[in-house]
């Protein structure tokens, strides 16, 4: 950073930026202030960029401008065009870019300071011990974040199979790669003294990190992917903090480590809501196709099915209806159809509520976004703790593409793999209609006892199609 007055001014701008990041993130975590919080954080980022440009002073801006313009353009086009249903994969890929940027910054610095000058000497002596070690960490973590996020993106967007891809001996292989990367990092810091060889070591380290990122994420099933994205989000923060150590910039250290810590906390909250332990998520192998076969699901002996006409009649006669949207609704893109049905019922004097399980949708909180986008009033979206006592005096519950989150086995069966998971207690309602494509198991791969209850009717079909049929029937009544 510059000396003298400009240096002090820049340092103060960075301090202000750091304060705004903290306030922004804090407000982002509260519903009422979230949007303002995001804007405060964006202002903090703008300040950081302005401060840095001020610090640079008069340099040649050609490359810098090219990068700024191109990046802003691509970023805004992506952000404006992405449909709300694709938000999980969008977050994943953006996060990957952040990780890649951190790794590239450090590599570029090595090139400017050492490789292109042809300076001879070990990196730890040329850059400083801490700088060399954190440079290695930034490349490793940034690389893992990038390739891991790309795999998460591909899985979430269906470009590759969502299920776990299990390689034989994968744990041993990962440990071997990690040990190899650490050894290379130490060699980079204290071993190699020739700049050409040093450059080769840097590329090798990047390659190794990229392979490690892929191998770490492919064994993890699609349903666990949100947790992985959150964890990778934390990594990208840590990578930025490591870059901060390399260039001696406290702002990067502050914001990077804050994001790293926030990401870990968020990951833990999500794991809890999904009844998964972080260790078992990371080890992989669990969770696959959302509508996967019936393996381990057990046979259903006494389910009853109904058509749209029957369901429409009991909806028409109800006083209070609760809709339970799940993953299947998001897949069928049926959120607008739900709203239409809800409005139709309300016009006929029926009270309509939406029960939102913490992990409904494709990512925790995703269902709220999807339903809000479909113009369903926020006041009608009730969270689990608030809606559960309501089911006892609810006439009709319509479960739309949700499965495990309404399985009473989570409460009643100690031996069930989902025992202890918080669920929506729809089984207390007078009648339950489950709209589902088949009797296939949810991602926990188990039988749902709700489907065999006497007051449950299965309505087989695609969520959107069934909803449209219901709307037609009710309009015709």
């Amino acid at each position, binding site marked *: 950073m510059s000396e003298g007055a400009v240096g002090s001014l820049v340092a103060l701008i960075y301090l202000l930026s750091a304060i705004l990041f903290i306030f922004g993130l804090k407000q982002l975590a509260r*519903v009422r202030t979230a949007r303002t919080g995001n804007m405060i954080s964006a202002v903090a980022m703008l300040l950081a960029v302005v401060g840095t440009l001020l610090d640079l002073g008069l340099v040649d801006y050609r490359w810098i401008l090219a990068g700024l313009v191109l990046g802003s353009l691509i970023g805004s086009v*992506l952000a404006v065009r992405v449909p709300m249903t694709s938000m999980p994969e969008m977050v994943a890929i953006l*996060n990957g870019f952040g990780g890649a940027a951190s790794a590239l910054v450090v590599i570029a610095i090595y090139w400017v300071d050492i490789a292109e000058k042809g300076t001879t000497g070990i990196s730890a002596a040329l850059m400083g011990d801490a700088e060399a070690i954190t440079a290695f960490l930034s490349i490793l973590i940034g690389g893992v974040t990038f390739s891991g996020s790309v795999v998460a993106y591909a899985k979430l967007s269906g470009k590759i199979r969502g299920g776990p891809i299990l390689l034989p001996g994968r744990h041993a292989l990962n440990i071997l790669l990690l040990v190899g990367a650490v050894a290379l990092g130490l060699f980079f810091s204290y071993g190699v003294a020739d700049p050409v060889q040093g450059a080769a070591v840097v590329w090798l380290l990047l390659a190794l990190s990229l392979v490690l990122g892929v191998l770490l994420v492919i064994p993890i099933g699609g349903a666990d992917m949100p947790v992985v994205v959150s964890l990778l989000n934390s990594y990208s923060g840590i990578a930025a903090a490591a870059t901060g150590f390399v260039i001696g910039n406290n702002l990067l250290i502050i914001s990077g480590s804050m994001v790293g810590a926030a990401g870990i906390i968020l990951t833990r*909250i999500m794991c809890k809501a999904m009844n998964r332990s972080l260790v078992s998520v990371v080890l992989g192998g669990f969770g696959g196709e959302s509508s996967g076969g019936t393996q381990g699901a057990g046979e259903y002996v006494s389910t009853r099915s109904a058509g749209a006409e029957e369901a429409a009649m009991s909806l028409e006669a109800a006083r209070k209806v609760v809709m339970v949207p799940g993953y299947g609704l998001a897949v069928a893109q049926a959120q607008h159809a739900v709203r239409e049905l809800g409005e139709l019922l309300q016009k006929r004097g029926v009270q309509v509520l939406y029960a939102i399980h913490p992990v409904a949708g494709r990512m925790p909180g995703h269902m709220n976004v999807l339903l809000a986008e479909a113009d369903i009033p926020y006041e009608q979206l009730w969270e689990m703790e608030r809606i559960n006592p309501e089911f006892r005096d609810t006439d009709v519950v319509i479960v739309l593409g949700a499965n495990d989150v309404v399985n009473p086995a989570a409460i009643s069966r100690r031996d069930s793999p989902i025992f202890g998971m918080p669920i929506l207690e729809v089984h207390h309602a007078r009648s339950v209609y489950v709209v589902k494509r088949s009797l296939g198991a949810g991602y926990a791969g188990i039988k749902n006892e709700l489907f065999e209850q006497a007051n449950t009717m299965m309505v087989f079909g695609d969520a959107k199609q069934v909803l449209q049929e219901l709307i037609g029937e009710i309009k015709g009544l």
Partner: protein
Amino acid sequence: MVLGPLMIGLYVFVLSIFIGFEVINKVPATLHTPLMSGANAISGITIVGALYTAQTADVTVSNILGAAAITLAMINVVGGYLVTDRMLRMFGRKR
């Protein structure tokens, strides 16, 4: 005792982790996705590092790497803040 820049950095690092833990305590499930996306935008702070790397007009490996880093970080920053705002705008909307 005089702290060198590394030690100051370490202090800052550890204390900021505590701030991160403290700030994201008890966040409602509704906000998980936007929060992840908003925090993700903040990790684009690496843009500051990227800006220091491409200071000449020459076509060199370092400048190309630097410009690539600036581009990627900027996609992360601009894309991240905009999608987060798009999601949050839905919550505040009144009909």
